[in-house]
């Protein structure tokens, strides 16, 4: 039986803690639009689509944001230094329950002039501040490079890996592959089976992803990895952070690749956000951005088993009546 009062108070405590944390560090809270022309280009995502209609009947194809990223980066390009936003984001064709809900609450924050390792420490500080508010003890936060994880768990060195050696490693470990698998697919199969599956309960930052897994990240000095990290606690993925790419032409190239992939998958291709590409080069280097799922943080803080236990109106209740 659902305790609405308790869930609402816990969410309030969490949001208050997040807001105090960032205000104390000089961040400004921003509101970003939910209905936009380009809701996200990622080939994997299914944005909710809609139409904006003007009084004279003029129609604009639109979608609900899958992340406030584009709007936030425009604000950085326009000169804002440290910003955060707490917003609803929308992703269709997600599970209703478990760790997923088609609309969920996202915290994103950005800081110009700092790199992703500073962001990693800040993320730990934030989660610890939340844990303190919930009187919860957290163990040490581990830090694990993707390369080290695969070297230990799958016996393959990503510095020298090729699609052939990745496939051979899958075969040797009895991991299912498909003839159409790309280097990225083969890597991800190994990662899913050997790394993500037994990350354990303790907090762990996974960082420096192979560059084919880091769409919007700057590369490490050796050029092999993207400066990206994720935080897992109790096997749940809580955030995804990047040292941001500020190269307009490179970003256009990646958007075009993604648009092509969407087209091949038969998905709606949204227009490239030209304003973003214009403003991107005005961002400083380095700059970091992090996107963190607030519902999942609440799950960790309250030991909830399903996202449904931290939402007043989970989609499963709204749509799965029969």
């Amino acid at each position, binding site marked *: *039986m659902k*305790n609405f009062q308790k869930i609402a108070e816990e969410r309030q405590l969490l949001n208050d803690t997040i807001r105090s944390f960032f205000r104390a560090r000089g961040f400004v809270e921003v509101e970003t639009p939910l209905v936009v022309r380009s809701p996200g280009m*990622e*080939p*994997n*995502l299914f944005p909710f689509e809609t139409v904006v209609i003007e009084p004279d009947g003029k129609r604009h194809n639109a979608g609900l944001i899958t992340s406030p990223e584009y709007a936030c980066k425009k604000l950085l390009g326009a000169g804002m230094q440290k910003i955060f936003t707490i917003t609803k984001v929308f992703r269709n*064709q*997600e*599970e209703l*329950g*478990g760790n997923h809900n088609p609309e969920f609450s996202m915290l994103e924050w950005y800081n110009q002039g700092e790199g992703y390792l500073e962001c990693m420490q800040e993320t730990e500080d934030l989660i610890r501040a939340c844990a303190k508010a919930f009187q919860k003890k957290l163990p040490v936060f581990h830090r694990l490079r993707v390369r080290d994880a695969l070297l230990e768990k799958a016996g393959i060195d990503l510095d020298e890996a090729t699609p052939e050696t990745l496939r051979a490693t899958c075969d040797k470990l009895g*991991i*299912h592959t*498909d003839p*159409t*698998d*790309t280097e*990225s*697919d083969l890597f*991800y*199969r190994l*990662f*899913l*089976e050997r790394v993500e599956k037994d990350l354990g309960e303790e907090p762990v930052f996974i960082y420096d*992803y192979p560059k*084919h*897994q*880091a*769409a919007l990240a700057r590369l490490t000095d050796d050029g092999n990895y993207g400066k*990206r990290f994720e935080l897992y606690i109790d096997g749940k993925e809580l955030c*995804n952070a990047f040292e941001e790419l500020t190269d307009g032409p490179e970003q256009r190239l990646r958007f075009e690749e993604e648009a092509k992939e969407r087209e091949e*998958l038969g998905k709606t291709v949204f227009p490239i956000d030209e304003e973003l590409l214009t403003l991107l080069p005005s961002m400083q280097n380095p700059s970091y951005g992090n996107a963190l799922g607030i519902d999942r943080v609440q799950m960790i803080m309250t030991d909830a088993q*399903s996202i*449904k236990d931290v939402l007043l109106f989970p989609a*499963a209740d709204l749509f*799965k*009546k*029969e």
Partner: protein
Amino acid sequence: MPSPNDIKKGTAINYDGSLWVVVDFQRVSPGKGSSFVRTKMKNISNGKVNEYNFKSSENLTFADMQYKKMQYLFSDGSFFTFMDSVSFEQISVDEGTVGDDAKYLKEGLEVTIAMHEGNAISMTLPMRIEYDITYTEPAVKGDTASGNVSKEAELDNGLKVKVPIFLNTGDRISVNTDTGEYSERISK
């Protein structure tokens, strides 16, 4: 061709020379690249459960299945007997195929049985099932104040669930079979 995106609980897949039935699945997406479906499947011939990650764009071979509406009749502990609602033909389904869902069964309940070449492969329950409460403690004054907003109730098939304290023995409720939780009170 069926794709891993069409996988649902109970889907039967021909894979690696065996017939498997999906017991659980989850979509996973990396930051970039293809998405995958993490699929837990049971091998029909030996009962072994394995996990495979299928890329969304892979081709899979789904087995031809017949889905029949059947009424649950009785169980002798290791086999469960169901009756075809149309032909009145009876079939026996083993314990392993019914699995944990056995606790929701009660006489006369209509379920969907997936059949492959005459054999029962899986059973799917209705989303919600109605039961009568056969016993629950009466509410005690002060329970709400102390935060005890739910209590245990025993249902007419022996299943036990947490229900809100305002419910009494003899009330009719529905239970969500996805979560195993109390769903709502049915007015008589």
